[in-house]
């Protein structure tokens, strides 16, 4: 009885529904997890969120390599006799139930001491006793409850990084000092010549001085060092006026209190540093559960099975694979190195590596490339080249990955900073020169006052707050951008290039057309059941598309790998598969994805499974065509040219059968012509082009899955909104320009006071925070406003 959803994972139960304890489950796996939870008194899991679970996957020796102590050692964070600590990346963490169950692992197995979840990173840190539960068993336990960790080569290679908390400390020190200095400055603000104040003035001033020391030399050190480095290499970035402001503020204030000339500007100094650091902190927003840095290592497994003499199997780390080694590649596993197929039939899915949409059938003697996934059935292969020399990894040694085109980018703030510094210095020295002539005693006062009040802080804050807020807004809408500079580059691109397979097309939905004689009900039933018995992606796609029928056990079933299926039930016999298998004739032209079908030896017709293009693609391309030149680069064959021509504006260049290096070269060529390129792709075969372009966007069906190194990850469901996102970045740049204009206004007001020699500490103390806060408020409100338009 279909119509109910699985109690554990929420997917609709079809005819395979399992009943247990008064609830329905979609499969035995889900029911088993429920049982485990129930018997350990952990049913609270289901009370926090509805259907939070996941069906466990079949392991079949997948984690045997964890028994090797050398491999385990590299993965563990800490080991000490009976206390081991490891941090797992668990993609399925997505709700509070997940947090709860993973923090209660100790109730499932006494070998676990404790565990803690870091939700934004989707990680779980587990403390366990290796004498009671081995690492492999721990992973098995996690998988058994539906939380299989992702253990890839990337984690194996990763060095332990200490989390960088420096900014937090600097911010804390600056805030602490700023608040206290403000309080301690109050008496002198409101000074009315009272006797007691004159007595204790020195005390307050020197306490304030002491508080400001760590702010200048610790919290502000970043700006001072950066300005110094910039000047040394001949660049005037925004940190130069900031450092100048800090130093002049500090020096003038110290001189003032030493010679009893005044109160000094320590409050403005610490306030300045505090707001600047706040801007930096706000801009640092990252999506810690996503990685924008993935290379092939997070796609590859850590260990593979090598076949030794006498058929013995040995799990070895993937780096130890040598030329001539014989490997066993299991069903669903990746081929780690270029190799020759020895035994078995290869059904290789290269879609990630080359972009070919259909799996390729290979037989003994054929050459296989690293990165392909063997779909069904185990195969034996002989390695031709070690992992680091495979066709794929050579792509990564290309210079594109040292990010040449992106590091050269000078962001807007730095460019404006240069002009600002020159302007301020000009005003300062001309004003000082004027007063030197008119009233020399005021000259130094005016010089330093100008340098103090000409606050670059509004300029330095405008971009971080605008772009930082935009990062947050985009993230909420499914567009995860790596950093603020990527947003700035996005506003400047003029050319957009798209990959086809997986980017513009989706494998989740298929459009299937049937041409031929209509099927009778009995034929349809047998066909559906025959398809169900096969694990081939085409069979499964077809199975899902046909109307539901009852499950009928087949009398006979045979699967000819790479050819087709034969099934018989009642008295109906059905053949499904390639043209050659079903009717004995070779296919007429490039088959695309055609599945032929015959019943009782009479040819009935064929199903054509076409690429399903993402919803809203045509409109997206129309919207983009206004502002950008478009192009499509596909690793697949030309069969989709006609459909693409329908979708895209006329005369859009389209290239097929593109290898990864060819895509990269295409982008380079455009850049040599002076274009700013945006590349949208999804697989390893796009990695080169994504890195080389000014902006690389990876489209992702499921953020848990692998995406190649890029500047932004776009959730596939938001694909049609890409034009809106790009337009919003342009609007954001306008907001930044407007903030610069505001800050200019503030500076003019402040400069009036400074140039006329009337700059009191209290005026500076009011103007600076006022300008900073109003810029922050304006940019935040404005970006929220433009962000609301994306719907």
């Amino acid at each position: 009885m279909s119509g109910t959803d699985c109690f554990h994972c929420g997917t609709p139960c079809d005819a395979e529904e399992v009943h247990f304890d008064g609830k329905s489950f979609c499969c035995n796996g889900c029911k088993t997890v429920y049982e485990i939870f129930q018997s350990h008194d952990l049913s609270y899991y289901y009370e926090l969120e509805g259907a939070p679970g996941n069906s466990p996957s079949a392991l079949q020796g997948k984690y045997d390599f964890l028994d090797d102590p050398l491999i385990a050692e590299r993965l563990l964070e800490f080991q000490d006799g009976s206390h081991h600590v490891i941090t797992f990346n668990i993609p399925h963490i997505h709700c509070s139930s997940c947090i709860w169950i993973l923090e209660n692992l100790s109730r499932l197995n006494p070998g676990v001491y404790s565990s803690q979840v870091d939700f934004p990173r989707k990680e779980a840190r587990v403390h366990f006793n290796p004498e009671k539960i081995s690492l492999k068993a721990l992973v098995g336990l996690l998988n058994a409850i539906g939380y299989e960790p992702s253990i890839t080569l990337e984690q194996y290679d990763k060095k332990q990084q200490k989390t960088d908390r420096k900014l937090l400390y600097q911010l804390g020190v600056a805030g602490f000092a700023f608040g206290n200095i403000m309080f301690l400055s109050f008496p002198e603000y409101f000074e009315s010549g009272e006797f007691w104040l004159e007595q204790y003035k020195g005390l307050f001033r020197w306490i304030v001085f002491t508080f400001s020391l760590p702010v200048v030399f610790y919290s502000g050190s970043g700006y001072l060092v950066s300005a110094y480095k910039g000047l040394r290499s001949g660049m005037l970035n925004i940190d130069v006026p900031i450092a100048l402001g800090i130093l002049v503020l500090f020096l003038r204030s110290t001189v003032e209190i030493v010679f009893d000339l005044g109160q000094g500007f320590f409050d403005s100094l610490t306030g300045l540093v505090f707001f600047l650091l706040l801007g930096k902190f706000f801009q640092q927003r990252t999506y810690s559960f996503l990685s924008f840095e993935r290379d092939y290592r997070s796609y590859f497994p850590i260990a593979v099975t090598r076949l030794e003499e006498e058929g013995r199997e040995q799990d070895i780390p993937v780096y130890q694979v040598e030329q001539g080694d014989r490997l066993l590649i299991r069903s669903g596993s990746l081929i780690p190195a270029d190799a020759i197929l020895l035994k078995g039939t290869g059904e290789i899915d290269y879609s990630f590596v080359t972009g070919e949409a259909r799996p390729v059938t290979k037989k003994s003697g054929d050459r296989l490339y690293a990165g392909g996934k063997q779909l069904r059935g185990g195969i034996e292969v002989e390695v031709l080249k070690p992992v680091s020399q495979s066709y794929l990894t050579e792509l990564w040694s290309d210079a594109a990955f040292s990010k040449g085109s992106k590091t050269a980018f000078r962001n807007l703030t730095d460019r404006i900073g240069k002009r600002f510094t020159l302007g301020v210095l000009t005003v300062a020295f001309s004003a000082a020169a004027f007063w030197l002539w008119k009233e020399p005693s005021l000259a130094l006062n005016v010089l330093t006052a100008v340098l103090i009040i000409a606050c670059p802080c509004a300029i330095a804050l405008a971009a971080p707050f605008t772009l930082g807020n935009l990062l947050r807004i985009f993230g909420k809408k499914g567009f995860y951008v790596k950093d603020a500079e990527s947003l700035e580059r996005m506003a400047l691109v003029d050319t957009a290039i798209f990959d086809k397979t997986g980017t513009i097309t989706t494998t989740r939905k298929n459009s299937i057309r049937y041409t031929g004689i209509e099927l009778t009900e009995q034929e349809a039933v047998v066909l559906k059941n025959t398809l169900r018995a096969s694990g081939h992606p085409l069979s499964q796609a077809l199975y899902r598309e046909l109307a539901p029928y009852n499950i009928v056990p087949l009398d006979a079933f045979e699967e000819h790998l790479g050819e087709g299926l034969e099934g018989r039930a009642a008295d109906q016999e059905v053949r499904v598969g390639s043209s050659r298998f079903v009717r004995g004739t070779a296919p007429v032209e490039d088959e695309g994805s055609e599945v032929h079908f015959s019943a009782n030896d009479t040819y009935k017709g064929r199903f054509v499974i076409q690429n399903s293009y993402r919803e809203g693609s045509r409109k997206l391309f129309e919207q983009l065509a206004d502002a950008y030149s478009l192009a499509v680069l596909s690793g697949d064959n030309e069969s989709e040219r006609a459909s693409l021509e329908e979708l895209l504006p006329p005369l859009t260049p389209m290239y097929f059968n593109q290898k990864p290096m060819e895509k990269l070269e295409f982008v380079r060529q455009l850049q040599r012509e002076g274009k700013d390129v945006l590349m949208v792709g999804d697989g390893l075969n796009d990695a080169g082009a994504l890195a080389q372009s000014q902006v690389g966007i990876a489209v992702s069906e499921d953020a848990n899955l692998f995406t190649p190194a890029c500047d932004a990850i776009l959730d596939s469901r938001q694909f049609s909104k890409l034009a809106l996102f790009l337009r919003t970045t342009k609007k954001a740049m306008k907001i930044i320009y407007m903030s610069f204009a505001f800050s200019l206004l503030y500076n003019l007001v402040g400069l009036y006071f400074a140039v006329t020699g009337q700059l009191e500490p209290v005026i500076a103390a009011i103007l600076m925070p006022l300008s900073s806060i109003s810029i922050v408020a304006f940019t935040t409100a404005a970006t929220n406003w433009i962000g609301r338009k994306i719907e």
Partner: protein
Amino acid sequence: MSVIYMLLAISISVALIFFVAFVISVRKGQYDDSYTPSVRILFEDELREELPKKEPETKEYNQLDKPF
């Protein structure tokens, strides 16, 4: 008015104590993940009277409200 020395000393000391507390909490990693604790406090501590635990010494680690 010389009481002001003592007042300043006390208030600055108190402020410093809070600052030290801040530094300690950052070092312990409490600011690394500012999202998960907000979910964690909403978990209910269940009453576990009926089922006696087989290994009482591990129970300590089951307390959900103990930050790590």
